[in-house]
């Protein structure tokens, strides 16, 4: 087994364990911390796949921004130590979860993956940038639409929380 495989299995085990911990641990703050760990493991998986830019952005956005906001929201809630008490929705939730897992696994196993169609550029960052901002076949318009949508969200947030004059 080469080093990359070892890294993959370690990260995958970390991801599964922390994802299970997110659902099973009653203490919400600790569950949030495990979610951050899961994000971290996903970033590690991206990096082992050669997607270094994606891995760094995953840490920056999910660990540094979304994780922090999540923990902040948890700290603002009451009775964190009592955790999330069980309710009657656990049965339908687990059935739905099992169905979703089955559907995803089935489609993953039954898809013919066209791997090695083109040689992966390593490092991938420059190639990624070139393909996104390519003038003919690039994705400049979707990118700009995304930027506009984010701007609208920011303005909406200011309008929502701003002082009533």
């Amino acid at each position, binding site marked *: 087994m080469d080093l990359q495989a070892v890294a993959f299995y370690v990260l995958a085990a970390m991801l599964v364990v922390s994802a299970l911990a997110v659902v099973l641990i009653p*203490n919400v*703050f*600790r569950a949030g*911390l495990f979610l*951050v760990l899961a994000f971290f493991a996903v970033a590690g998986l991206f990096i082992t796949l050669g997607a*270094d*830019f994606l891995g*760094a*952005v995953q*840490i*920056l956005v999910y*660990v*540094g*921004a979304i*994780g*922090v906001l999540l*923990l*902040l929201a948890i*700290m603002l809630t009451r009775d964190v130590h009592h955790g999330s008490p069980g309710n009657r929705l656990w049965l339908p939730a687990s059935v739905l979860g099992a169905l979703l897992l089955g559907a995803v696994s089935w489609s993953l196993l039954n898809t013919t993956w066209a791997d090695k169609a083109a040689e992966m550029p390593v*490092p991938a*960052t*420059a190639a990624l940038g070139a393909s996104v901002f390519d003038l003919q076949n690039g994705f400049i318009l979707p990118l700009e639409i995304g930027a506009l949508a984010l701007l609208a969200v920011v303005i909406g947030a200011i309008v929502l929380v701003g002082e009533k004059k």
Partner: protein
Amino acid sequence: MDWLHWLFYVGVILGAVPVMVMAFIWLERRGLGRLQLRPGPNRAGPFGILQPVADAIKVLTKEDIVPVAGDHWVHFVAPLVVFAPAMLVFTVIPFQEDGGLVRGLVPDLNIGILYIVAVSSISTIGVFMAAWGSNNKYSLISAFRSMAQVVSYEIPLALAILGVVLAAGTMSLTGIVQAQAVPFIVMQPLGFIIFFIAATAELNRTPFDLMEAESEMVAGYHIEYSGMKFALFYLAEYAYTVGISAIAATLFLGGWKAPWGVGPQVGVLWLVVKILLVFMVILWIRGTFPRVRVDQLMGFAWKFLFPLSLINIFIIAAESLAWPGLPWWLLFPNTAIALVLVVVWSGLFRLGGGRVQV
């Protein structure tokens, strides 16, 4: 990459950074003493040079107190989550030109500066864990302040770094240093000012040390820590300061390069000299400025640094479209623009003056 290289540089970083941090703690305490007209630590060894060693021994032998009502696991892990990213920052700092004997651990990482920004954002989580695990209202307030501050100042910081990346055409730190025929502090003075102020705020140092304001919240988020765990927080804080100084030296001061190419061509030497230079300015600021208020802090980030960093990006983008390769004479218009913008923009609004403006 061979194993020897990794082993050697991990050892160098783990060994050299704490030694440097201890030296810088001594320098800061002595220098601050000079600035405040008092001797500073001067008993242990000549010029008090053994004071950090004495402090380290004291801290190691202290009792480790864990709050009963806190979350013990979170309390235990928090110092590690703060400390590890501080060390990780140093892995991509290049020490010397390629081919030299000493180069650094992974100086050619193609996403170098993005990696630094990403890794240093992790330690905020550690601050939260420390505050939550302590179950102390002062530490919680401190963590909230830290969160608001770090999130606000990360934006101008990243935008100022983006200006450098745009001018260099690469995110690799080695590439950025090689692109600096003229150091970027001269080419992009506005970007450097924004970077430096935002970095000081990210470090939670004076005048932005609201989360540790002694008169308001005793000690900040690590109030319930003692012994080795507190030492880790203290070490991480200074390791970050050295790290930010190293990043500033690499991004804006030409990194390992000798100024004008004269002097001994030993990259590490020049890097350390430049780190020391940036650190001394940070120290000087600490000895000079009073602490800002919360509303002033937020107003400064969003009304001053943020618009100016957007203008900075725009100017550099337009210049690199008009004159590819950015010739050296652009430093004259850039310096003039920076001066005019800073003066005009400071006159545009007042940061609350004597009253609290929310």
